[in-house]
């Protein structure tokens, strides 16, 4: 489906220090099917526009995410692999050539639970914002080819007035200055991305004239929403649950973590159905990837607290068994992150005598030269959590860790 892809061609694009439009991007010569491994954000945008114009089969990702084994796998699957290299790039032919599948776009999953998998989409299935939107200049900090990247890119490609300012990975820490210079008024990022920005230079962030802030890609806790609300009291602050498999399935605008329990098992035409099986979030979504229609087990753990369904983390890592009592790492992380002198927290289980595992944490203080001490944080948690959930060993880190996916794997 290529309908609508012309509509945004005259939108402004700022990438690699240059201002242009979608229409003015250079025209790459891409085979079909092609796996395009990009090192420069401008090349990724050009490949996306090429797909929008010609419907060629495309897998787009940053070169850093693909190792030699994945390259070989892609060539075995019939892709011509094009990527950066000495001399301006190189092309490897498919091992088993096959006809292209017109209109097919492939995404690689984030691989947070193993090797990245390919999920089939189309430009149509990735375009989830269809209503007319107020004119915005969007920041795009995401790695090329990820679901979140495509969300921002399809919005700008398909709707007039949706401009784009792309941040390269090595510019990430300076994005507020770039965004302020180019009038960015809407930005989407992971909670780690927002926490890191608040932590590094909250004053620079406050100078960006944001009217829309979006969080997604990781569990969203109340603390980060409240901190952003303090900086941007009049902006719309939304969080989105989205993945390559089920697409954008939950959108919450009320400034609160989690979503209302009344949304569970609600069936509305054209809207995802959210369910819980045991402790796992199950989604039936119209925005799903190819072959993923019907209920999809997300692997994400949920807990209902005070009428809200909180997504606390991955099922295989969120639950810590402390002497037979279950602890949600996500809920403990939320308590720590709500401490006024904590900028970021990671909570894990550690092997311990008698109990099997104990809750431990790593914390980045808001003021590194005046950090809270362990006893203060333990007391903070003890006042808000049952005894067995209180982290007893809390290590201070100097900087919020972030990966290319803008996540910390908390």
């Amino acid at each position, binding site marked *: 489906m290529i309908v609508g892809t012309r509509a945004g061609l005259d939108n402004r694009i700022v990438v690699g220090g240059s201002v242009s439009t979608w229409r003015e991007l250079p025209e790459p010569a891409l085979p079909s099917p092609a796996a395009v491994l990009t090192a420069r954000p401008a090349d990724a945008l050009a490949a996306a526009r090429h797909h929008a114009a010609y419907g060629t089969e495309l897998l787009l990702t940053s070169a850093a995410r693909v190792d030699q084994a994945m390259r070989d796998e892609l060539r075995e699957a019939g892709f011509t692999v094009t990527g950066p290299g000495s001399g301006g790039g190189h092309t490897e032919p498919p091992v088993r050539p096959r006809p292209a599948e017109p209109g097919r776009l492939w995404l690689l999953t984030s691989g947070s639970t193993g090797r990245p998998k390919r999920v089939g989409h189309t430009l149509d299935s990735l375009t989830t914002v269809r209503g007319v939107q107020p004119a915005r200049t969007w920041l795009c900090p995401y790695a090329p080819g990820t679901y979140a990247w495509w969300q921002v890119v399809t919005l700008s490609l398909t709707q007039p007035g949706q401009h784009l300012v792309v941040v390269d990975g090595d510019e990430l820490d300076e994005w507020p200055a770039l965004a302020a210079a180019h009038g960015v008024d809407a930005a989407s990022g992971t909670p780690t991305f927002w926490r890191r920005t608040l932590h590094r230079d909250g004053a620079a962030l406050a100078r960006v004239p944001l009217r829309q802030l979006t969080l997604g890609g990781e569990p969203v806790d109340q603390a980060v929403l409240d901190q952003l609300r303090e900086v941007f009291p009049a902006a719309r602050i939304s969080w989105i649950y989205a993945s390559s498999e089920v697409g954008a399935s939950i959108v919450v605008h009320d400034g609160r973590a989690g979503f209302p329990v009344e949304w569970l098992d609600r069936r509305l035409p054209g809207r995802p159905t959210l369910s819980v099986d045991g402790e796992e979030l199950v989604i039936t979504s119209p925005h799903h990837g190819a072959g993923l229609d019907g209920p999809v087990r997300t692997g994400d753990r949920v807990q209902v607290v005070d009428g809200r369904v909180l997504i606390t983390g991955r099922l295989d890592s969120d639950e810590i068994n402390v*002497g037979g009592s279950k602890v949600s790492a996500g809920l403990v992380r939320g308590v720590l992150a709500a401490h006024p002198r904590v900028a970021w927290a990671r909570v894990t289980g*550690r*092997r*311990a*005598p*008698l*109990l099997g595992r*104990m809750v*431990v944490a790593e914390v980045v203080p808001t003021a590194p030269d005046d950090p809270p001490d*362990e*006893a203060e944080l*333990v*007391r903070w948690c*003890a006042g808000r959590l049952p*005894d*067995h959930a209180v982290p*007893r*060993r809390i290590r201070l880190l100097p900087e919020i860790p972030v990966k290319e996916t803008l996540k910390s794997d908390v």
Partner: protein
Amino acid sequence: MNELSRAHIRDLMSQVLANQGRVLPDDDAADLREIGFRSLDFSELALRVEDATGEELNFDAPGLRRIATVGDVLDFLETLQRQ
């Protein structure tokens, strides 16, 4: 192995209690139940010993049930470091 002295382990035990606003008595014969030193506290102390030595303790060693006093905790962790 970087073995901790009994005095050092006592300091760590004192920190565990201090983090909860409690004080470790000087008397090694003090009863753990009376000072409120529970399994969570014992586990935390073991982690502190591991962090201080940089080595994992072997908790499969027998004898855990006989621990009733402050001195028992110190004896046990001293012994455990040598196994």
